Structure formats: structure tokens, C-alpha cells
């Protein structure tokens, strides 16, 4: 029989105002196994913890129930306190009478009744608790960053500066990400490339950073501190050691009609290409799908003109297998497809463009060399209309329910830059709300309106109608003047919603990191652990976690790096002992548990067992306790009940349910 102490916390008035704590003490004291019960104003305070420790020593308690706030809040606090008094920390259970009771109920009598029931359930569980011993696992002192945009680069630099090896895996031929496509950045209007490229160079030159471009993560196994990752280095068809980056191959390549991804398809590139001039590495790749040599076997011009002899048509994909202690996801975003938004005539008119396309048009290295011009006829637009929230804050399933967060600011930036450079061009912005929280953000927006005369209209656009004369008729509403507007425009720019890079689903599945309904990676705690995934050892950097601008991304990238460094700095990790365990005498060896295990923690071995005198070799499940996260999926799936979760055994849970239903 256990000797259980019950400690009921008032949490100031948080609990005591709704729950009669004295009554909880009185009734809990009568429960089987309970030898001590008391209440205190703040159990988590030093004095409160001392009360628990004193009772453990004086009454030889074997189990403790603390009726207080959520275990997410103070379970660790009370377990540590109990451990210091000589009790196994896993003999402490929390009855959550705050979040689950006092905060959500008003009636004192009812709430007290419920608090007693919750206490009873926890006591019933502790009666079946057994001391557990956490294990240890080692930490590989190397981090993997998936994604080589500003988020990934910043995280890599920070981790590498702390002295740890870092690998960046980037899918495209160069690091740089979305930021490399931007022209100017708000709210300071400094050139994006001017602040990004030094960071790219720094990352490439850093002795602790190793960059795999044109590469993808293929397979991930293992667990926090000890991941094993297969990286596919796609065949570049160019020898990276020999190539000097002279660019002659690109000039001479006869296959020139391939939409240039970097310029959002606004112009063309060759089959052998580097995405942009400042690419790192400055080594081209051959796009085999569009290369004449690969399609027909004839051509080979690049090979002929390459002085360095770097072209290698026979290069094969290569798989690199590497061990990591921490993995940071920095997969970034793309703009949504606009095929569900026919009303904006994006697919009908070349002069309806997205904001990211405008970034390329405004950029001196872009398809128009930085001249603002209509893509249909090359003329300078005199009337420009921006439409905000295209696919953002959308209540139906065409777009996204969330605010893309960056559009208000970059639209203000675009409007301001255009008014500055082309003062005779009128700029109108249709908006739902202008959202400018951020340092110097509202000042920036007001400058666009007040100093640059950008015409902001509160209201949405219903339709953009291409006119026979090549102009566009914008039909919208002005909610402040309460009138319909028909506006002739030469060009329309859509502030298109952003969404997580579609590849993130595949990556999240490999990492067993959870994603939300919008494909953003989920944090371990929305407020208190915003850069960690609920899956241990996986960290989140940049827009893969939620929409954010560059300063926020860089700040979060640094935060993710700190969390990763905190992990890599440890030599050993303590593993959670609340893991699954298979009773080999009950196990059928049927593999059901292994099928449902999201962590790949279950394997099988042929083992000699002695089942009440019958000695035979059986196929039995074995749990790798370092991999097991204690989710319990296996215990539910196991048909014979052989799998059980330590600390949350089926018996304990049934005992809790029985106690509640009593």
C-alpha cells in the first residue's frame, strides 16, 4: 500500500475563490492510501515546496498528489522538490484543479465537487505508480539546417559561431532563398541583396559550415541528439571543384527558352544556369529536363566551351549519410497559386502581377533591368492599383484564413518607391485594414500616405476587367465614402498570400514534427516554446512556423540557434522514462505496434522466452526507449495488451476512470 500525501494549492485566489480547498483536503484525506493532506496558499513557492518535503520525510510518504495548476506548469517543479526529499520524482502526480476546474467553473459547490473527483483520480493513479528511472543518450555535436534562406543562414551562422559543425541543405542551386529575390526592404529601404549577400558569403566561408545546395533531405531516422539523415545531392552535371564560375557556358547554351524561376517566370533562362549573379556557390547546374544534350544526346556546347573541363554529363545523384544532434527546419514559403481567383484576371492579363513579381521588375538585375513597365507592351504605367489581402484573411477555402503579415508593409514600400521614382504615376491601394505593428512600421506607412501621396481606399476589389485598349478596369468599393468605384488602371499588383513551402509536409512527416491545418509547423508551446517543435530535437526557424518579416525571421533564427546550441552543448541527454514497454510473454509479435509507431521506436527480435515452463523462441516487440516519445499509440493498437506505457499504464488509466465514475 502506498503512503500518499495530498497537497492542495489555493493559487492565491485562482483556485480558492471557486474551489473550497478545505473541503478538498477533508475528502481527499479519506481516500485509500492517503496518510496526509493539507492546503497552502502557494504550493509552488519555496515554503509550499518545503511543506511537501517535510511531509515526505516525516510521514515516509511513498507518493504525492499536488492539486494545483496544469502539469505543464509545475509538474517539473514538484517532482524536483520531491526528489530532493528522497522520493522518486515519478511518484508525484498533479491533479489539475485550476485550468480544468476553477478557471472554467463559477459555482463553488460544483467546482469543489469536481476538484475532489480530480484529486481522487490522481490518488487512484498514484496508488498504482511505480518508481521510474530515466535513461541517458548521447548527443552528436552537429546540426542540420533544412533550407538555405535568410532563416537557415542566420541559424547556421549562430550555431557555427558557437563552435558546432553545421550542414545546410538547400533544394535549389543556391542559398539565399526568398530574400535574394527582393529588391528593397522595409522600413529602411536598404537593398536586400546588399544586406543578404555578405551573410551568404560569411556562411559559405565559415569553417564550421558545410553547404549542400541542389540537395534534399531524403530520410531521417533516430531521435533527439542522435539523428541519422540521408541527404540526396542531386547531380549538378558540373564538377564543383573544377568550375571557375566564368559563365561562358550559360552564354553559349542554345536552350534559352526555359522560364526563369528566380524571376518568377517573367523572363527565360538557359538549361545550364545559376539562378542569379551572386549565387553561392557560383557553380551552374544543368537542368536535365530541358537540356538538349540530355534530351537528344546531341549538343554538348557547354562542355566544348568550358575551359576548366568542369561539365560532367555522367554525374550521378549522391547520397550522403550524416549524424546530427539537432535539426532546424527553415523551409520558408511561397506565394499561393491564384487559379481560384479568376476575378483579378491574373491569368488573363500580363499586366496583373503579384507583388513578388513586382519585386523582380523593380530590381536592377530583374527582367526589365529595374524599369517599371507593363509586361504586355513595355509602356510605363501611369495608373497603378495595388490590391491587398489576395487570398489572405479568407473565410472560404479559396485562400488562407490567416493574415500573411508582410503584405501591408511591402505594399506601402512598393507604393512609396514607385511614387518616388515615377512621380507622375498615380498609386491606389485597396485594403481591408492596414496592419503596421512593428518598430518604425506605422511611421513608414504614414509616410507613404502623407509624403508620397499614395491613395489608400478602404474596401475590396470585386473584379479586374481587361479592356480592349489594353488597360484594366478595376471595380471596387470604398467603404468609407460608401460608394462603388470603377477605376481605370495600367497595371494591377496583387498582394498574394504566402503559404509554407509545399515540401514542408514531406519534411514534417520525415521528422515526425507536427503541422497545423495551414501546413505551418507547430510549436511545442505557442507562447513559451515558440521555436521548438513538439518533437524533441527539432527546431523551427522562419516562415515555416508562421508568417513573419525579415527582422522577425532573423530574430527567430537566432532563437532557434540558441535552443539548438543548448542541446548540442550537452554531452548526454536524460530520456523520459515514461516509455512503452512490451510484456514479452503476452506479445504476439504481430507488428501492429510497429505499424502505428510514429517514431520508429519498435523493432522485433527472436527471443527465447520461458512461458510458465514452455521454452520457445518467439518474435517479440522491443522498444527503443531513446526513440519512444510515450505517445501510447502502440498500447491502444496492441491486440493482446502486451504493450503498456510506463507511468501511464492501462491499469492506472482505468483506475483514474473508475475513480472519476465512482
Amino acid at each position, binding site marked *: 500500500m502506498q503512503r500518499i500525501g495530498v497537497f492542495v494549492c489555493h493559487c492565491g485566489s485562482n483556485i480558492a475563490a471557486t474551489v473550497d480547498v478545505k473541503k478538498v483536503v477533508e475528502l481527499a484525506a479519506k481516500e485509500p492510501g492517503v496518510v496526509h493532506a493539507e492546503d497552502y496558499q502557494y504550493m509552488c513557492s519555496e515554503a509550499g515546496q518545503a511543506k511537501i518535503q517535510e511531509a515526505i520525510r516525516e510521514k515516509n510518504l511513498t507518493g504525492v498528489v499536488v492539486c494545483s495548476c496544469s502539469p505543464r506548469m509545475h509538474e517539473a517543479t514538484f517532482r524536483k522538490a520531491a526528489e530532493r526529499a528522497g522520493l522518486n520524482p515519478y511518484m508525484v502526480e498533479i491533479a489539475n484543479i485550476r485550468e480544468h476546474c476553477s478557471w472554467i467553473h463559477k459555482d463553488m459547490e460544483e467546482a469543489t465537487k469536481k476538484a475532489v473527483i480530480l484529486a481522487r483520480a490522481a490518488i487512484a493513479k498514484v496508488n498504482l505508480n511505480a518508481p521510474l528511472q530515466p535513461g541517458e543518450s548521447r548527443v552528436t555535436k552537429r546540426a542540420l539546417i533544412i533550407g538555405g534562406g535568410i532563416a537557415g543562414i542566420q541559424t547556421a551562422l549562430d550555431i557555427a559561431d558557437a563552435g558546432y559543425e553545421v550542414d545546410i541543405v538547400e533544394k535549389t542551386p543556391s542559398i539565399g532563398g526568398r530574400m535574394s529575390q527582393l529588391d528593397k526592404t522595409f522600413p529602411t529601404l536598404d537593398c536586400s541583396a546588399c544586406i543578404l549577400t555578405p551573410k551568404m558569403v560569411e556562411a559559405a566561408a565559415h569553417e564550421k559550415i558545410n553547404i549542400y545546395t541542389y540537395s534534399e533531405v531524403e530520410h531521417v531516422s533516430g531521435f533527439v541528439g542522435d539523428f541519422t539523415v540521408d541527404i540526396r545531392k542531386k547531380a549538378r552535371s558540373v564538377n564543383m571543384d573544377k568550375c571557375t564560375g566564368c559563365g561562358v557556358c550559360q552564354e553559349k547554351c542554345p536552350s534559352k527558352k526555359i522560364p526563369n524561376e528566380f524571376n518568377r517566370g517573367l523572363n527565360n533562362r538557359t538549361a545550364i544556369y545559376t539562378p542569379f549573379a551572386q549565387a553561392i556557390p557560383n557553380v551552374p547546374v544543368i537542368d536535365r529536363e530541358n537540356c538538349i544534350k540530355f534530351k537528344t544526346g546531341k549538343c554538348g556546347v557547354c562542355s566544348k566551351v568550358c575551359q576548366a573541363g568542369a561539365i560532367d554529363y555522367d554525374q550521378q545523384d549522391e547520397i550522403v549519410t550524416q549524424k546530427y544532434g539537432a535539426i532546424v527546419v527553415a523551409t520558408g514559403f511561397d506565394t499561393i497559386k491564384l487559379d481560384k481567383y479568376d476575378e483579378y484576371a491574373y491569368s488573363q492579363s500580363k499586366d496583373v502581377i503579384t507583388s513578388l513579381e513586382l519585386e523582380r521588375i523593380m530590381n536592377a538585375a530583374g527582367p526589365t533591368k529595374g524599369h517599371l513597365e507593363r509586361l504586355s507592351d513595355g509602356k510605363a504605367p501611369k495608373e497603378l492599383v495595388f490590391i491587398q489581402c489576395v487570398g489572405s484573411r479568407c473565410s472560404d477555402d479559396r485562400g488562407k484564413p490567416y493574415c500573411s503579415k508582410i503584405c501591408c508593409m511591402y505594399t506601402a514600400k512598393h507604393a512609396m518607391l514607385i511614387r518616388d521614382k515615377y512621380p507622375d504615376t498615380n498609386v491606389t491601394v485597396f485594403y481591408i485594414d492596414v496592419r503596421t505593428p512593428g518598430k518604425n512600421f506605422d511611421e513608414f506607412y504614414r509616410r507613404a500616405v502623407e509624403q508620397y501621396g499614395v491613395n489608400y481606399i478602404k474596401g475590396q476589389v470585386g473584379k479586374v476587367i481587361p479592356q480592349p485598349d489594353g488597360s484594366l478596369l478595376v471595380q471596387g468599393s470604398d467603404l468609407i465614402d460608401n460608394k462603388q468605384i470603377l477605376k481605370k488602371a495600367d497595371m494591377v499588383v496583387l498582394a498574394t498570400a504566402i503559404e509554407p513551402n509545399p515540401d514542408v509536409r514531406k519534411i514534417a512527416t520525415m521528422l515526425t514534427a507536427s503541422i497545423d491545418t495551414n501546413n505551418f509547423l507547430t510549436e511545442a508551446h505557442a507562447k513559451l516554446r515558440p521555436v521548438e517543435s513538439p518533437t524533441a530535437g527539432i527546431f523551427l526557424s522562419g516562415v515555416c512556423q508562421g508568417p513573419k518579416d525579415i527582422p522577425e525571421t532573423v530574430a527567430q533564427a537566432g532563437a532557434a540557434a540558441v535552443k539548438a546550441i543548448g542541446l548540442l552543448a550537452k554531452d548526454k541527454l536524460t530520456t523520459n522514462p515514461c516509455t512503452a514497454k512490451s510484456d514479452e510473454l503476452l506479445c504476439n509479435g504481430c507488428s501492429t505496434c510497429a505499424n502505428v509507431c510514429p517514431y520508429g521506436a519498435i523493432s522485433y527480435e527472436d527471443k527465447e522466452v520461458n512461458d510458465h515452463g514452455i521454452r520457445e523462441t518467439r518474435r517479440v516487440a522491443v522498444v527503443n526507449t531513446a526513440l519512444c516519445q510515450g505517445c501510447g499509440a502502440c498500447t491502444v493498437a496492441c491486440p*493482446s*495488451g502486451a504493450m503498456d506505457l510506463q507511468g501511464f499504464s492501462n491499469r492506472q488509466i482505468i483506475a483514474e476512470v473508475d475513480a472519476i465514475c465512482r
Partner: protein
Amino acid sequence: MQELINRAKELLADGTVARVLGWKAGDLPYNPEPAYFETEESLKDFVYNGFCGANLSKYMIEASKLEGKTLVCLKPCDTYSFNQLIKEHRVDREKAYIIGVGCKGKLDIEKIRKQGIKGIESISGAEITDEAETLTIQTIYGEKTCAYKDAMLERCHVCKGKEHKIYDELMGESKETKDADRFAEVEKIEAMSPEEKFAFFQNELSKCIRCNACRNVCPACSCRKCVFDSNKFDSAQKANVDSFEEKMFHIIRAFHVAGRCTDCGECSRVCPQGIPLHLFNRKFIKDIDTFYGEYQAGEDTTSKGPLTNFTFEDVEPSIVAERG
């Protein structure tokens, strides 16, 4: 049948198999029972006729532990159970020599009795080689006849098909016997009000005598130690609170075999009380088909069952609330 016996003798003689798993005549003309034959001589007792409904797959769990191969006779529908057992690593494919035997639908003595045919002395027309559409039954009250079809087991009216899903060799013809909708009965129950459903199952399950025949015969109920027999779980020793609680056994059993049940119908065939136990399993199968796409357990040995697999197309848990 003689062909089958001859082949079995050959395989025993040349050492390919160490024993034969088939059926031998029982004490009545309609109850042949599963049996091992270890010598050519003993095969004289071997029978295979319309009453050999017993699914021999499950016997292969123990037979897999024996020395040498076992020749096992499997009907088309039995092969699904065998595949499922391979998938669950419960039988050893290498230890089995499978003869896929032909099947023209298996007979249910209760259906014959229900037609008022009692005092049965012998039955002809049930031999697997017989092409007869009619059974001729000698009884102490004289000769009676019964259409073969009217005497078939329920499961044969919803036959999964005459194809053997796994075998080493085939012997004998099979016949398509399907003439009813597999889920018609389930749909009838689904249409009932909760009170009617409860009354229906309470009535049916009140007949249960907890003989465990359904569990013991079920190829999916192959646990080394059943939760109902284990002292590790509180289910074995728990005293009943009311007379219906005992019947939870069937509900729990249906959950345990969900997604693994091949719908072989053995549970209903062996129930001495005539409870339509297969309806529970078929309800699960119907739901699985609806929520996760058509799935037949035992169709193959490698695919993941929908309940032990995750895809992005899976229904959300809220479906339960929506359906009520």
C-alpha cells in the same frame, strides 16, 4: 476427394510434408472435424465435403512450430485468414504446403433443421464432386430433399469469390455462390433507433453462454494469451454488475479484431446458440470501407491495414460526432 488423398499420400511419401491438415468424419454425417494425418494409412479417414466449413488457417499457428512442413487444405475464403496470419507473423509460410481446395459453398446443418428435417441418418449430394443442386437426406421419418442453396451457410451467400489468394497447388473446382448483399443486414440494424439496436443486441447476446467457441475458432483471435484469460487485466476476474455486462465480451472482441477480421464467418458458424456474431465484424468492415476506402483483410500479406496506417486522406475524428 480421392485425387486430394492421392496427392497427400504422394507428398507424405516423398517427404515434402510431415503431416496433412484436413478433415475427418465426425460421429454424425454432418460434422466432419479438423484433423492431422501423419501416415498414408491414416488418410483413409480423410473427408472433404460440403460440411467441411472449418477454416484450418488458425491450426497453422501451432503447426508452424512443428518439425517439417504441414500440408494444409484451404478453401478460397480460408486463404484470406492465412494471409492475414502471415501478415501478423503468426504462421510461417515456409512451414505450410497449401493445397487450395475447390469450394461450392458450405452447408449449415441448422438451416436444414430449420426446414423441419430432423432425425438425419445420412445425406447425399454434399460431396464436393457432386454436381447435384439438391441434397437428398435419409431420416428416420423417410427421405427428404433440400435445395443445396437453401442449406448454405450465410457467409457463402456473400462469398468473397472463388479465387485462392495463396496456395502451392490447386485442386478441384470452385463455384461462385454469392447471391446476397454483404452489408444488407448491417444496414437494417443501422436504420434502427438506438433503443431498438440495444434491444436487438441485448436479445441476441442474452443467448450467449460464454463457451468461447467464437473466440477459439477465430483466426484473428490468435493472441498467445487472451485478455479475457489473463490475470494482468481486470476483465478476467471481474464480477458482473448486471446480466448484460458479460456480453461486453463480444463488443471488446469485435474491437480487437477490427481491421484484421477477414469476415470468414467462423464465429457465427460455430456459435451453439446461433447468435449472428459476424454482424459486429461486418459493421466494422463497412465503416472501414466507408471511411478509408475499400479494404479486404487478408487480400495480401504486405499492405498496412487502414486502422494501423496513417494517410492524409484519413477521416478526421470528428466524423464520429457528425454521424452521431
